[in-house]
Protein backbone atom coordinates (compact mmCIF):
# COMPACT_ATOMS: atom_id res chain seq x y z
CA UNK A 1 0.00 0.00 0.00
CA UNK A 2 1.33 3.45 -0.90
CA UNK A 3 1.33 6.14 1.76
CA UNK A 4 1.66 9.45 -0.09
CA UNK A 5 2.33 11.70 2.92
CA UNK A 6 5.60 9.96 3.87
CA UNK A 7 6.14 8.70 0.31
CA UNK A 8 6.57 5.09 1.37
CA UNK A 9 5.28 1.63 0.37
CA UNK A 10 4.40 -0.57 3.33
CA UNK A 11 2.36 -3.76 3.66
CA UNK A 12 -0.71 -2.83 5.78
CA UNK A 13 -0.67 -6.28 7.40
CA UNK A 14 2.87 -5.58 8.68
CA UNK A 15 1.66 -2.30 10.20
CA UNK A 16 -1.35 -3.97 11.81
CA UNK A 17 0.86 -6.71 13.33
CA UNK A 18 3.33 -4.14 14.70
CA UNK A 19 0.37 -2.24 16.13
CA UNK A 20 -1.00 -5.44 17.67
CA UNK A 21 2.30 -6.21 19.48
CA UNK A 22 2.63 -2.63 20.75
CA UNK A 23 -1.02 -2.68 21.78
CA UNK A 24 -0.47 -5.69 24.04
CA UNK A 25 2.57 -4.05 25.65
CA UNK A 26 0.72 -0.76 26.08
CA UNK A 27 -2.39 -2.31 27.62
CA UNK A 28 -0.38 -4.46 30.00
CA UNK A 29 2.45 -2.12 31.03
CA UNK A 30 1.06 1.35 30.30
CA UNK A 31 3.87 2.23 27.90
CA UNK A 32 3.68 3.83 24.47
CA UNK A 33 5.94 1.22 22.85
CA UNK A 34 7.92 3.72 20.81
CA UNK A 35 11.09 1.67 21.25
CA UNK A 36 9.48 -0.94 18.96
CA UNK A 37 7.31 1.25 16.70
CA UNK A 38 10.12 3.64 15.71
CA UNK A 39 12.58 0.92 14.61
CA UNK A 40 9.72 -1.08 12.98
CA UNK A 41 8.81 1.90 10.80
CA UNK A 42 12.46 2.65 10.03
CA UNK A 43 12.85 -0.95 8.91
CA UNK A 44 10.22 -0.28 6.20
CA UNK A 45 12.16 2.76 4.98
CA UNK A 46 10.08 5.47 6.67
CA UNK A 47 12.19 8.56 7.40
CA UNK A 48 13.19 9.01 11.03
CA UNK A 49 11.18 12.24 11.49
CA UNK A 50 8.02 10.54 10.15
CA UNK A 51 8.69 7.46 12.30
CA UNK A 52 8.78 9.60 15.46
CA UNK A 53 5.72 11.76 14.63
CA UNK A 54 3.60 8.92 13.25
CA UNK A 55 4.39 6.76 16.24
CA UNK A 56 3.09 9.50 18.55
CA UNK A 57 -0.18 9.71 16.58
CA UNK A 58 -0.59 5.94 16.81
CA UNK A 59 0.14 6.08 20.56
CA UNK A 60 -2.78 8.53 21.01
CA UNK A 61 -5.26 6.08 19.46
CA UNK A 62 -3.91 3.02 21.24
CA UNK A 63 -3.82 4.77 24.62
CA UNK A 64 -7.44 5.95 24.24
CA UNK A 65 -8.58 2.33 23.78
CA UNK A 66 -6.43 0.98 26.63
CA UNK A 67 -7.26 3.87 29.00
CA UNK A 68 -11.01 3.42 28.36
CA UNK A 69 -10.73 -0.28 29.17
CA UNK A 70 -8.64 0.42 32.28
CA UNK A 71 -11.22 2.98 33.37
CA UNK A 72 -13.99 0.40 33.27
CA UNK A 73 -11.80 -1.73 35.57
CA UNK A 74 -11.33 1.23 37.97
CA UNK A 75 -7.65 1.62 37.11
CA UNK A 76 -7.57 5.31 36.15
CA UNK A 77 -7.06 8.19 38.58
CA UNK A 78 -8.30 11.15 36.48
CA UNK A 79 -7.16 13.81 38.96
CA UNK A 80 -3.61 12.43 39.08
CA UNK A 81 -3.56 11.98 35.29
CA UNK A 82 -4.56 15.61 34.66
CA UNK A 83 -1.88 16.95 37.03
CA UNK A 84 0.74 14.67 35.52
CA UNK A 85 -0.14 15.71 31.98
CA UNK A 86 0.70 19.33 32.85
CA UNK A 87 4.10 18.37 34.24
CA UNK A 88 4.83 16.00 31.36
CA UNK A 89 4.18 18.64 28.69
CA UNK A 90 6.44 21.11 30.55
CA UNK A 91 9.18 18.50 30.95
CA UNK A 92 8.90 17.37 27.31
CA UNK A 93 9.45 20.94 26.16
CA UNK A 94 12.55 21.14 28.39
CA UNK A 95 13.91 17.89 26.98
CA UNK A 96 13.24 19.03 23.40
CA UNK A 97 15.02 22.35 24.09
CA UNK A 98 18.07 20.48 25.40
CA UNK A 99 18.05 18.34 22.25
CA UNK A 100 18.01 21.52 20.15
CA UNK A 101 20.96 22.93 22.13
CA UNK A 102 22.92 19.68 21.71
CA UNK A 103 22.05 19.67 18.00
CA UNK A 104 23.63 23.11 17.66
CA UNK A 105 26.68 21.91 19.59
CA UNK A 106 26.91 18.97 17.16
CA UNK A 107 27.01 16.11 19.66
CA UNK A 108 23.35 15.21 20.15
CA UNK A 109 23.55 11.52 19.17
CA UNK A 110 26.48 10.62 21.39
CA UNK A 111 25.16 12.49 24.46
CA UNK A 112 21.63 11.08 24.16
CA UNK A 113 23.01 7.55 23.70
CA UNK A 114 25.29 7.75 26.72
CA UNK A 115 22.50 9.12 28.90
CA UNK A 116 19.95 6.57 27.63
CA UNK A 117 22.01 3.42 28.32
CA UNK A 118 22.56 3.90 32.10
CA UNK A 119 18.98 5.21 32.55
CA UNK A 120 17.41 2.18 30.81
CA UNK A 121 19.70 -0.38 32.46
CA UNK A 122 19.33 1.33 35.86
CA UNK A 123 15.51 1.16 35.71
CA UNK A 124 15.60 -2.50 34.71
CA UNK A 125 18.04 -3.51 37.43
CA UNK A 126 16.18 -1.57 40.12
CA UNK A 127 12.81 -3.07 39.13
CA UNK A 128 14.32 -6.55 38.98
CA UNK A 129 15.68 -6.17 42.52
CA UNK A 130 12.50 -4.57 43.89
CA UNK A 131 9.92 -6.92 42.35
CA UNK A 132 12.01 -9.99 43.19
CA UNK A 133 12.42 -8.86 46.82
CA UNK A 134 8.72 -7.96 47.11
CA UNK A 135 7.63 -11.32 45.70
CA UNK A 136 9.87 -13.06 48.25
CA UNK A 137 8.42 -10.96 51.10
CA UNK A 138 4.85 -11.55 49.88
CA UNK A 139 5.30 -15.31 50.17
CA UNK A 140 5.07 -14.99 53.96
CA UNK A 141 2.11 -12.59 53.94
CA UNK A 142 -1.50 -13.73 54.34
CA UNK A 143 -3.70 -13.05 51.27
CA UNK A 144 -6.21 -10.17 51.58
CA UNK A 145 -9.80 -10.97 50.61
CA UNK A 146 -10.94 -8.61 47.88
CA UNK A 147 -14.56 -8.59 49.09
CA UNK A 148 -13.55 -6.83 52.32
CA UNK A 149 -11.34 -4.24 50.73
CA UNK A 150 -12.32 -1.03 49.01
CA UNK A 151 -11.54 -0.67 45.30
CA UNK A 152 -8.23 1.14 45.76
CA UNK A 153 -7.15 -1.04 48.67
CA UNK A 154 -7.86 -4.23 46.73
CA UNK A 155 -5.45 -3.06 44.04
CA UNK A 156 -2.85 -1.90 46.59
CA UNK A 157 0.34 -3.89 46.40
CA UNK A 158 3.41 -4.02 48.57
CA UNK A 159 6.83 -2.93 47.45
CA UNK A 160 10.28 -3.44 48.92
CA UNK A 161 10.78 0.28 48.28
CA UNK A 162 7.73 1.20 50.42
CA UNK A 163 9.62 2.82 53.37
CA UNK A 164 11.20 5.39 51.03
CA UNK A 165 7.89 5.95 49.22
CA UNK A 166 6.24 6.67 52.60
CA UNK A 167 9.00 9.19 53.44
CA UNK A 168 8.39 10.95 50.13
CA UNK A 169 4.64 11.04 50.82
CA UNK A 170 5.33 12.60 54.25
CA UNK A 171 7.05 15.64 52.65
CA UNK A 172 4.13 18.03 53.06
CA UNK A 173 5.15 20.98 50.93
CA UNK A 174 2.11 23.20 50.28
CA UNK A 175 -0.21 22.60 48.44
CA UNK A 176 -0.98 19.11 49.72
CA UNK A 177 -3.69 17.15 47.91
CA UNK A 178 -5.38 13.79 48.32
CA UNK A 179 -5.82 11.09 45.68
CA UNK A 180 -8.71 8.95 46.94
CA UNK A 181 -8.87 6.80 43.78
CA UNK A 182 -5.24 5.78 44.29
CA UNK A 183 -5.72 5.38 48.05
CA UNK A 184 -3.33 8.26 48.91
CA UNK A 185 -4.54 10.50 51.72
CA UNK A 186 -1.98 13.29 51.43
CA UNK A 187 0.76 14.11 48.96
CA UNK A 188 2.44 17.32 47.88
CA UNK A 189 1.39 18.59 44.46
CA UNK A 190 5.06 19.39 43.83
CA UNK A 191 6.06 15.74 44.22
CA UNK A 192 3.57 14.74 41.50
CA UNK A 193 4.69 17.58 39.23
CA UNK A 194 8.36 16.69 39.78
CA UNK A 195 7.73 13.06 38.76
CA UNK A 196 5.79 14.20 35.69
CA UNK A 197 8.47 16.76 34.78
CA UNK A 198 11.23 14.13 34.93
CA UNK A 199 9.14 11.70 32.84
CA UNK A 200 8.32 14.46 30.36
CA UNK A 201 11.95 15.55 30.20
CA UNK A 202 13.05 12.05 29.24
CA UNK A 203 10.17 11.85 26.76
CA UNK A 204 11.45 15.00 25.04
CA UNK A 205 15.10 14.02 25.41
CA UNK A 206 15.02 10.29 24.55
CA UNK A 207 11.86 10.28 22.41
CA UNK A 208 8.58 8.38 22.74
CA UNK A 209 6.18 8.55 25.65
CA UNK A 210 8.77 7.58 28.33
CA UNK A 211 6.25 5.27 30.02
CA UNK A 212 9.21 3.07 31.01
CA UNK A 213 10.30 5.88 33.34
CA UNK A 214 6.93 7.31 34.38
CA UNK A 215 5.14 4.06 35.28
CA UNK A 216 7.89 2.91 37.73
CA UNK A 217 8.16 6.47 39.13
CA UNK A 218 4.44 6.51 39.87
CA UNK A 219 4.74 3.21 41.75
CA UNK A 220 7.97 3.87 43.65
CA UNK A 221 7.96 7.64 44.21
CA UNK A 222 4.24 8.47 44.47
CA UNK A 223 3.15 5.09 45.90
CA UNK A 224 0.40 4.49 43.31
CA UNK A 225 -0.72 0.82 43.11
CA UNK A 226 0.71 -0.82 39.95
CA UNK A 227 -2.64 -1.40 38.22
CA UNK A 228 -3.64 2.22 38.77
CA UNK A 229 -0.20 3.44 37.67
CA UNK A 230 -0.62 1.55 34.37
CA UNK A 231 -4.13 2.90 33.72
CA UNK A 232 -3.38 6.47 34.82
CA UNK A 233 -0.16 6.53 32.80
CA UNK A 234 -2.16 5.57 29.70
CA UNK A 235 -4.69 8.33 30.36
CA UNK A 236 -1.86 10.82 30.83
CA UNK A 237 -0.20 9.58 27.61
CA UNK A 238 -3.41 10.38 25.67
CA UNK A 239 -3.04 14.07 26.61
CA UNK A 240 0.74 14.42 26.27
CA UNK A 241 0.95 12.34 23.03
CA UNK A 242 -1.89 14.42 21.50
CA UNK A 243 0.16 17.52 22.20
CA UNK A 244 3.24 15.82 20.68
CA UNK A 245 1.25 14.71 17.62
CA UNK A 246 -0.03 18.24 17.07
CA UNK A 247 3.40 19.86 17.21
CA UNK A 248 4.97 17.14 15.03
CA UNK A 249 2.10 17.36 12.49
CA UNK A 250 2.64 21.10 12.14
CA UNK A 251 6.33 20.41 11.43
CA UNK A 252 5.35 17.85 8.75
CA UNK A 253 6.44 14.74 10.69
CA UNK A 254 3.15 12.80 10.85
CA UNK A 255 1.76 10.34 8.29
CA UNK A 256 -1.67 9.86 9.79
CA UNK A 257 -2.58 7.15 7.25
CA UNK A 258 0.19 4.89 8.58
CA UNK A 259 -0.91 5.63 12.15
CA UNK A 260 -4.54 4.74 11.32
CA UNK A 261 -3.53 1.39 9.81
CA UNK A 262 -1.20 0.53 12.71
CA UNK A 263 -3.94 1.41 15.11
CA UNK A 264 -6.34 -1.21 13.71
CA UNK A 265 -4.04 -3.92 15.12
CA UNK A 266 -3.34 -1.99 18.30
CA UNK A 267 -7.04 -1.90 19.25
CA UNK A 268 -7.19 -5.68 19.64
CA UNK A 269 -3.71 -5.88 21.24
CA UNK A 270 -4.49 -3.17 23.80
CA UNK A 271 -7.67 -4.95 24.89
CA UNK A 272 -5.80 -8.22 25.39
CA UNK A 273 -3.10 -6.37 27.38
CA UNK A 274 -5.62 -4.67 29.65
CA UNK A 275 -7.53 -7.88 30.39
CA UNK A 276 -4.23 -9.67 31.11
CA UNK A 277 -3.38 -7.20 33.93
CA UNK A 278 -6.34 -8.64 35.88
CA UNK A 279 -4.58 -11.99 36.15
CA UNK A 280 -1.28 -10.69 37.54
CA UNK A 281 -0.37 -9.13 40.89
CA UNK A 282 1.48 -5.77 40.93
CA UNK A 283 4.99 -7.14 41.65
CA UNK A 284 4.60 -9.71 38.83
CA UNK A 285 3.66 -6.97 36.36
CA UNK A 286 6.71 -5.01 37.53
CA UNK A 287 8.94 -8.06 37.13
CA UNK A 288 7.61 -8.66 33.59
CA UNK A 289 8.35 -4.99 32.84
CA UNK A 290 12.12 -5.50 33.40
CA UNK A 291 13.05 -6.51 29.79
CA UNK A 292 11.39 -3.44 28.20
CA UNK A 293 13.97 -0.77 29.14
CA UNK A 294 16.69 -3.35 28.36
CA UNK A 295 15.35 -3.64 24.79
CA UNK A 296 15.57 0.15 24.57
CA UNK A 297 19.18 0.01 25.84
CA UNK A 298 20.05 -2.77 23.35
CA UNK A 299 18.73 -0.64 20.45
CA UNK A 300 20.86 2.32 21.59
CA UNK A 301 23.97 0.09 21.92
CA UNK A 302 23.28 -1.28 18.43
CA UNK A 303 23.09 2.20 16.92
CA UNK A 304 26.29 3.22 18.76
CA UNK A 305 28.25 0.16 17.65
CA UNK A 306 27.06 -0.05 14.03
CA UNK A 307 26.40 3.61 13.34
CA UNK A 308 22.99 2.66 11.88
CA UNK A 309 19.85 4.33 13.10
CA UNK A 310 17.25 1.60 13.53
Amino acid at each position, binding site marked *: *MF*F*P*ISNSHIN*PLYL*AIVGFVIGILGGFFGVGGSFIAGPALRLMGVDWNYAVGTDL*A*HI*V*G*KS*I*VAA*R*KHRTLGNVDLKLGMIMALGTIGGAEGGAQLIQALKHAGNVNIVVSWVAIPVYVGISMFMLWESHTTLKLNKGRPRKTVSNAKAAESKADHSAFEPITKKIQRMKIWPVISLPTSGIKEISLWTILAVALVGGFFSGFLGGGAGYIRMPSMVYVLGIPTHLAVGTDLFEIVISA*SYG*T*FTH*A*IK*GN*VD*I*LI*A*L*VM*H*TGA*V*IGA*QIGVVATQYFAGPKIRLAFVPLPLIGAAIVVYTLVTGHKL
Partner: protein
Amino acid sequence: MKQDAAKSLRVFAAELAIYAVLVTAYFFLVLHVLGGWLYQLETKHRILYAVVAILLIAGQAVALDAVTTVLFRFLRRRWR
Protein backbone atom coordinates in the same frame (compact mmCIF):
# COMPACT_ATOMS: atom_id res chain seq x y z
CA MET B 1 -12.21 -24.62 33.37
CA LYS B 2 -10.64 -26.02 30.20
CA GLN B 3 -14.02 -25.72 28.46
CA ASP B 4 -14.25 -22.04 29.47
CA ALA B 5 -10.77 -21.35 28.11
CA ALA B 6 -11.57 -23.14 24.85
CA LYS B 7 -14.81 -21.15 24.52
CA SER B 8 -12.99 -17.85 25.17
CA LEU B 9 -10.39 -18.76 22.56
CA ARG B 10 -13.10 -19.65 20.03
CA VAL B 11 -14.91 -16.36 20.66
CA PHE B 12 -11.66 -14.46 20.33
CA ALA B 13 -10.74 -16.24 17.07
CA ALA B 14 -14.19 -15.50 15.62
CA GLU B 15 -13.94 -11.89 16.78
CA LEU B 16 -10.52 -11.59 15.16
CA ALA B 17 -11.77 -13.06 11.85
CA ILE B 18 -14.81 -10.72 11.64
CA TYR B 19 -12.68 -7.80 12.75
CA ALA B 20 -10.07 -8.61 10.04
CA VAL B 21 -12.77 -8.54 7.33
CA LEU B 22 -14.10 -5.21 8.61
CA VAL B 23 -10.62 -3.71 8.82
CA THR B 24 -9.69 -4.88 5.31
CA ALA B 25 -12.82 -3.20 3.94
CA TYR B 26 -11.87 -0.12 5.95
CA PHE B 27 -8.33 -0.08 4.43
CA PHE B 28 -9.60 -0.10 0.88
CA LEU B 29 -12.65 2.10 1.20
CA VAL B 30 -11.99 4.78 3.80
CA LEU B 31 -8.20 5.14 3.55
CA HIS B 32 -8.29 5.13 -0.25
CA VAL B 33 -10.88 7.91 -0.25
CA LEU B 34 -9.18 9.90 2.53
CA GLY B 35 -5.62 9.43 1.23
CA GLY B 36 -5.65 12.09 -1.47
CA TRP B 37 -7.51 14.63 0.63
CA LEU B 38 -5.17 14.19 3.63
CA TYR B 39 -2.12 14.47 1.38
CA GLN B 40 -3.40 17.79 0.01
CA LEU B 41 -4.17 18.99 3.52
CA GLU B 42 -0.68 18.02 4.76
CA THR B 43 1.06 19.94 2.02
CA LYS B 44 -1.16 23.07 2.05
CA HIS B 45 -2.80 23.50 5.48
CA ARG B 46 -0.57 22.06 8.19
CA ILE B 47 -2.48 23.35 11.23
CA LEU B 48 -5.77 22.04 9.90
CA TYR B 49 -4.02 18.76 9.07
CA ALA B 50 -2.73 18.52 12.65
CA VAL B 51 -6.23 19.01 14.06
CA VAL B 52 -7.78 16.54 11.59
CA ALA B 53 -5.05 13.97 12.35
CA ILE B 54 -5.81 14.01 16.08
CA LEU B 55 -9.57 13.90 15.48
CA LEU B 56 -9.19 10.98 13.06
CA ILE B 57 -7.03 8.84 15.33
CA ALA B 58 -9.20 9.61 18.39
CA GLY B 59 -12.39 8.97 16.41
CA GLN B 60 -11.05 5.70 15.06
CA ALA B 61 -10.03 4.64 18.58
CA VAL B 62 -13.53 5.20 19.96
CA ALA B 63 -15.22 3.63 16.91
CA LEU B 64 -13.03 0.50 16.76
CA ASP B 65 -13.24 0.07 20.52
CA ALA B 66 -17.03 0.13 20.23
CA VAL B 67 -16.96 -2.33 17.29
CA THR B 68 -14.76 -4.85 19.15
CA THR B 69 -16.82 -4.53 22.34
CA VAL B 70 -20.11 -5.10 20.48
CA LEU B 71 -18.59 -8.02 18.51
CA PHE B 72 -17.27 -9.63 21.67
CA ARG B 73 -20.60 -9.28 23.52
CA PHE B 74 -22.56 -10.59 20.52
CA LEU B 75 -20.33 -13.65 20.05
CA ARG B 76 -20.24 -14.40 23.80
CA ARG B 77 -24.04 -14.42 23.91
CA ARG B 78 -24.28 -16.63 20.83
CA TRP B 79 -21.88 -19.23 22.20
CA ARG B 80 -23.25 -19.27 25.74
